[in-house]
């Protein structure tokens, strides 16, 4: 990956790119499922890894069996699939993220990184509305928000922002989701959802590389 690819891709993120993204995301989730579950067991209910593994495996399946025709359709299909298979908090939230982002891409056959950044920003806002969380509440938003902002700049910037955002959840006290039940005991642990968000954004950068 590099500026070269970056410029090459131009306005040309196509169905193959989005499919690659989600396939890489599925692989990353598989690989990191135990770590996600471990993080969730510290401040949640020890299922985040299993949840996303199940969901992204289903996404991979549906994209293989019924390949959508547009980037938007890829994300909408994937989002629906997550909603139908994940459950928990992360299912509707990630599902909404992808559906809204996908809708924001419209019917175009290829989209630019800038278009994706704008659509993702809408998607992230939808997640905020659905879950009622704000930046600093120690949720996936703390990785997704910065990533959407930085995506205007580059895929790598988005990846790094997500990673930083996830790490920055460690000292926070959770105000949304299960971790909020722990009050001050949630401090000192990295949020599982922010961590998985960083994985998804890293997969995006990898797909672009």
């Amino acid at each position, binding site marked *: 990956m590099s500026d070269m690819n970056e410029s090459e891709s131009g306005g040309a993120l196509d169905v193959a790119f989005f499919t690659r993204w989600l396939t890489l995301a599925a692989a990353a989730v598989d690989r990191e499922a135990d770590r996600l579950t471990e993080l969730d067991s510290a401040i949640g209910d*020890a*299922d985040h890894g299993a949840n996303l593994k199940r969901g992204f495996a289903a996404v991979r399946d549906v994209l293989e069996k019924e390949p959508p025709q547009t980037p938007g359709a890829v994300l909408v299909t994937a989002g629906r699939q997550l909603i*139908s298979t994940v459950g*928990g*908090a992360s299912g509707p939230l990630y599902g909404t993220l992808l559906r809204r982002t996908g809708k924001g891409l419209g019917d175009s056959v290829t989209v630019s990184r800038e278009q994706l950044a704008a659509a993702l920003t809408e998607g992230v806002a939808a997640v905020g509305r659905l879950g009622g969380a704000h930046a600093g509440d120690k949720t996936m938003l703390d990785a997704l928000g910065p990533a959407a902002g930085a995506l205007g700049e580059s895929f790598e910037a988005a990846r790094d922002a997500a990673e930083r955002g996830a790490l920055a959840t460690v000292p926070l006290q959770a105000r949304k*989701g299960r971790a*909020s039940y722990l009050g001050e005991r949630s401090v000192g642990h990295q949020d599982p959802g922010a961590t998985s968000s960083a994985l998804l954004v890293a997969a995006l950068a990898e797909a672009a590389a």
Partner: protein
Amino acid sequence: MLINVPETVVADALRGMAAAHPELTVDVEHRVVLRRDAPVAGRVALVSGGGSGHEPLHGGFVGPGMLAAACPGEVFTSPVPDQMVRAAAAVDSGAGVLFVVKNYTGDVLNFEMAAELAEDEGIQIATVLVNDDVAVTDSLYTAGRRGTGATLFVEKIAGAAAEEGAPLERVEAIARRVNERSRSFGVALSACTTPAKGGPTFDLPPGELELGIGIHGEPGRERRPMMTSGEIADFAVDAVLEDLRPSGPVLALVNGMGATPLLELYGFHAEVQRVLTERGVPVARALVGNYVTSLDMAGCSVTLCEADEEILRLWDAPVQTPALRWGR
């Protein structure tokens, strides 16, 4: 764990439920447990659901006088909207469906999506959120109080109202009233082991306990050196009464978290009864057992519901489910 592989735990359990309970319709593929006679003409139908691992909640409460359907999610993971939509369609007689939802982000979001989809299909949906756990402060800084033991009270009492033929808004109002008059507090003597994790969800050395736990293997608000049954009863009942302040008799649920022997649970109930007597709170009805569990967690919770005449009458009404059965 007594399992095959973590991935099939819920499906395996549903196959077992199907085999054990010919009086229920268990759709293993779509993960819906139904009253065999649903839809019941002219009757509002209660649909609940949530993560698995809390059995007999909710599947064990399906039957005449209680739930029309239950939607079990993966272990400690809320079910997906498809399940609730399917359940609602199967049990709606045209009189409408009440979703009984425990207040967890996942459950709330998935049931919300399901309600939208079901309404699109022309099913009238009302929703009641159960949020009885006083260990969580209900504020902007939390996801709000959790739904725990009061779920049983809401499902039993609103279920009886539905069985009597009350219309949807009335069933919803009763459910809401029961929830508003109910509070719980839970204590863990051990963590639980989820199939996905394969080990305890948190580290609790013997000789210590967690106060203010939920039902998802998450640690509580505070850790203390082991207390006696009597001390725990004092702490838990007082925590509930601080929030509830009932002016009359209560329904009491003394609930085991899964691995606490019934012998110990009855002993704990004696202490709960003692504290309530000391505090001048009469117990109109008591239920002692493992009803809203957290897999193999050792521990207990106390739920009190300030009763009124209607609540008592509906509590006493016949119920025929795998886990609760009386009357008729």
